Each structure stands twice: as structure tokens, then as C-alpha cells.
């Protein structure tokens, strides 16, 4: 299957936002907006819902706390009970620091891991062509032409009306 893409390049994030909002209002499908830095308002213009990463952090942190306490209780009180300074075997107050550190460790690593997996970024992943300048100062808005109701010329006009410096048409093969 091939999809037909129109890419507009902007020098100012406010122009990108303007174009993205018009697309939202007119129901033109936006594939993506690509920016050198996070643009405030783009989430709402593209209809991006708040990330669910905090849930991953919560689950990771809870797992760290539970595993941390179980590890300490089992090793110090069950597997080889050892009398240290006459403290009880289940001396939970003394187990708090390690359980706390493991909570943070598990929560942090699971958050970072989920971010990479969900965003599909990992070491050595290839770069999509056409976005070599979006890490410098250029913003790009990627639109998809789905049917004949909206012609190529109209996409270009939309970009130029919002002050695009360049617009590109591209056919992309998707598996």
C-alpha cells in the first residue's frame, strides 16, 4: 500500500501550530508534526492524548517496593536468620532505605524503558529521510492525502498560507 504525503516546512512554531489547527478544524488527516523542541499547544492541535507513562512508573515503583521488602525479609529473616545486635528478624524499619532505593530504581528504569519502546526509538534505529533539518530549527507538518476531495494544489496552498518555507509531496510505501 502506498500513502501519499504532503510535508510543509516552517521556520516558526507558531506557523506550524496555525497550519495544524486549520487541518484539525477542516478534518484533514495529520500524520505527524516534527519539531526541534517540544511545542506547546501541538498536543491539543493534533489531538494527542496525555501520555499513560505515569501508570508504568506506578507499577514499576510498586514492584520495586514489594520486591525490595520481600528480598530483605526472606534473606535476613527466613533463608538464613541472623541475629544482628539483638534486632528482631523482621526489622522492617531497617529495611526501609533499601526498599526505597529499589522503588526509585524500578520506577525510573521502567519509565525510561517504556518511553523508548512506546516511541519506537532504540540504538541504531534508522532515520526517516526528509527530516534532516527538524533537529536544528525547522518544523515539519506531515499531511496525508486520503481521497480526491483535497487536491495536491490545495495542500500546497494551505502550507503557504501559513507561511511555510518549503513544501514537498512524497509517496511512501508502507508494509
Amino acid at each position, binding site marked *: 500500500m502506498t500513502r501519499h504525503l504532503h510535508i510543509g516546512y516552517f521556520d516558526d512554531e*507558531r*506557523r506550524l501550530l496555525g497550519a495544524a489547527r486549520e487541518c484539525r478544524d477542516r478534518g484533514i488527516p495529520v500524520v*505527524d*508534526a516534527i519539531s*526541534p*523542541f*517540544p*511545542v506547546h499547544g*501541538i*498536543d491539543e492541535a493534533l489531538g*494527542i492524548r*496525555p*501520555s499513560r*507513562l505515569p501508570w508504568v*512508573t506506578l507499577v514499576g515503583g510498586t514492584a520495586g517496593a514489594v520486591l525490595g521488602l520481600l528480598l*530483605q525479609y526472606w*534473606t*535476613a529473616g527466613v*533463608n538464613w536468620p541472623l541475629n*544482628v*545486635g539483638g534486632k528482631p528478624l523482621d*526489622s522492617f524499619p*531497617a529495611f526501609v*532505605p*533499601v526498599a526505597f*532505593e*529499589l522503588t*526509585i*530504581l524500578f520506577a*525510573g*528504569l521502567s*519509565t*525510561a524503558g517504556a*518511553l*523508548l519502546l*512506546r*516511541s519506537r*526509538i*532504540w*540504538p*541504531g*534505529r*534508522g*532515520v526517516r529521510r526528509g527530516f*534532516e*533539518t*527538524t*533537529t*536544528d*530549527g525547522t518544523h515539519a507538518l506531515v499531511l496525508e492525502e486520503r481521497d480526491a476531495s483535497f487536491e*495536491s494544489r490545495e495542500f*500546497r496552498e494551505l502550507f*503557504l*498560507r501559513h*507561511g*511555510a*518555507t*518549503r513544501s*514537498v*509531496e512524497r509517496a511512501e510505501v508502507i508494509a
Partner: protein
Amino acid sequence: MRTDAAGVAPLITGGKRPADVTRDVCGPLEGRPTGLWYLGMAVALSAFGLGALAVGYQVANGIGTWGLNRTVGWGFDITNFVFWVGIGHAGTLISAVLLLFRQKWRTSINRSAEAMTIFAVICAGLYPVIHMGRPWLAYWVFPYPNARGPLWVNFRSALLWDVFAIGTYFTISLVFWYIGLIPDLATVRDRATGWRKKVFNVLSFGWIGSARTWSRYETACVLLAALATPLVVSVHSVVSTDFATSVIPGWHATLFPPYFVIGAVFSGFAMVLTLMIVARKVMRFEDYITMKHIHAMCKVLVFTGSIVGAAYLTEIFTAWYSGNPYEKFVFMNRAGGPFAWAFWIMVSCNVISPQLLWFKRVRNSVLAIFLLSLLVNVGMWFERFVIIVTSLHRDFLPSSWAGYVPTKIEMGSLIFGFGLFFTLFLLFCRFLPMIAMFEVKTVLERPAQAQPVGSLEAGEEAAA
């Protein structure tokens, strides 16, 4: 200094546009290193080499090559450990706490401050390992199933809490720092050619800056900052319990956790100032690290320095008020005993010197601030030395009293830390973007409105 309508000086001066930021930060990575960099590297590597010889000699011959004795069991080794852990704290404070408080001035310095944290924690972690005497058995500190029973580690010991605190701190700091680097590594990749492009292609994880990714990315950064904030407080609190959970007069104090955390922030900010004042000059980053940034850090220095002074007074008051003769003796001995010189270096560097920043002439001189930051570094090293050695060298029984004189090998181990730290930091300045470009681009002064649309249409090169 130019100001906007509200009378606020801009964070970044020189009227930079996003492309200027990319050029200014990536430029130094793409050319040849300057003579100054080679000079710095030569000094740092020499110190590292000399220190490595001393540490190697000690590992081969044993802890007896140090000046420690039966009474003074901790000396330079643990002083260096606590000093370096403390240095790291400012990096996390700048990157995490100031992110949560939305302090935008952090964007110019957070990358280098976090790098400083990671390198300082590496230095810190090495000292207890060296102190073990048999560093090849260092993995025994981890709870793993073993053929000795299995005999587990003692989870009720503050020293083991340290293993988990420092280990977690290093891991989370590294992850937070690297995630912060990814968008900038992509910027470097898109400018690079040849082998550098291949390397940065792998390092940048295929980042292009999609809006969906940015949305998740910002959420993840806030989450990691929210995790790193209690973490950084816990790390030096746990380090302080190495002392506070013992019964040694001078160590056994509930004041220790907050006292150590604030001291860590104080020493860390002094080190950030030292590094940033040199970096802005050498890398020509005066537009990014402005006097506004330096003054903000100076304020933190005065604030935390004052709390450190209050903590010293509280310790002395508590010793007197406790009515415990041993506690009282420790503090009398600190101020007037054989190590009084170290105590007074500590007081003058940490309590008195930062107060000079109240004077306008001092805080408007970069050189004066630089010298002050060095004094605070020295003072905070001596603080740990005073806490550790003066509390130990006069035992409960006068027959056990002893002195402590570090040997040349211990001096070498002190130099080892500084050599390693500056070697790593100089490599970082050379190969990675020192300033968080994408974050700086969000705090640039922008024209009030985007330029009129018509003016740009001439540049159109629509490819149909």
C-alpha cells in the same frame, strides 16, 4: 544588560535564533580541539596516571600503605568518598528539582551539571572499593545466591544501604542524563559526516522529534525528575547514617541527614560554578551562561552556606546542651585540638567566605566568584575530614588515642579522584553537546509575532 518590557533580563543574550544555538553548541565538537583543551587533558591525565600508580601500589601491597591505624580507621578514603558524592548532588538538584519548579535558567547548565554528577559518583564509588583492600571481591556487597550458605548481606547495616543508594543514584542519573541527550545527539548526527555520523546515528536512537514522541518524552522527564528529587535527598541521608547510626561522639547525631544533604548541595553548586566559569570562557558560551546564571548559583551558595553555618552551631550547641562529657570533648577538641587547623579552614571557607557575596563588588567579579567557589570546594573537603578524623582520633580510652598522618600513597589516592573527574569532564566537553540545545531553544527570546506570511513566500521552492 538589555531588558524586555517587563524589565527582566533575557536568559540567553545575543539575540540567538534556534539555528544559532545549534551552530554555537555543535561547532566546538566538529573542529579540532584547542590548545587549551590539550593542556587541560595533559594535566588531568597526568594526575589520573599518578593517582592510578598510587592506587595500584596500595592494592598490590594492602591498606597498610596508608596512614590509618587501629583508632583512626577511616581517613582520606572515606573523606574523598563523601566529598565526591556531595559534589554530585548539585547536578541532580539543577536538572530535577529546578525542572519541577520550572526554573528556566537551568537549561543552560543542566547538561554539564548532570555530567558532573555522573563523573563525581563514579569517583565516589571507587573509594569504598579501593578501601576494601581486595577490590576484586567488590561484588560480595550484592545480595546474590552464593556457595557460602548462601550467606546474605546484612540489610540492617548503613554501609549496605549505601551500596543501594549510590547504585540507584548512579543508574537513575545516567538514564536521566542520557534521555536528555537523545534529541541533541540527533542534532549532532544531522550535522555530522563520515564516521561521526555513523556513531551518532547509533547513539541518537533514530530520533527525529515527532510530536507524539515529544509529548511522551516530556512526561517521562517530569516523572524522572520527580523520582530523582527524593532520591537525591535519600542518598546523602543514607551516607550520613554511615556515621549517625554509630555510637561515636561527633557522629551520633540526628542532625546528620539534613546537615549532609545541604552540605552536599553547597559543595556541588561550588563545583558547578568552578566548572561553568571556566567553560563559558574557554568554549565562548558567555551568551548562554550569563551573569544572571552565575548570580542565581551564587544565591544558592549563600543560602546553603548559611544553613551549613547554622548546622555547625547546632552541633556545638547540642554537644553542650546534651551534658555528655564525650560529646563536649569532641567539639572542644575540634576547635582547639591537634586538628584545629583543619576545623578553622572548614569554618572560614564554608561559613565566612560565601558571605562575601553580599558585597556587590565581589559578586560582579567573575574572578572573585571563581576563587570563592574554589575555597568552598576546599572547605567542604575539610568538613568531611574534620567530621571523620577528629571524631575518631580521640577514643573513649586515652590509652587508645592516636594521631593521623596521611602517607604519600593516600595523597596519591586523593589526586586519583580529581584526575579521573577532570579527564572524564574534558572528554565530555569534547565529544558531547555541553548545553542542552533543545531546551535552550524553548527559552530563547522570540519576536512577538511570527513575521508576516507574505515575506517568506519568495523563498518557496515547492517540489510537486
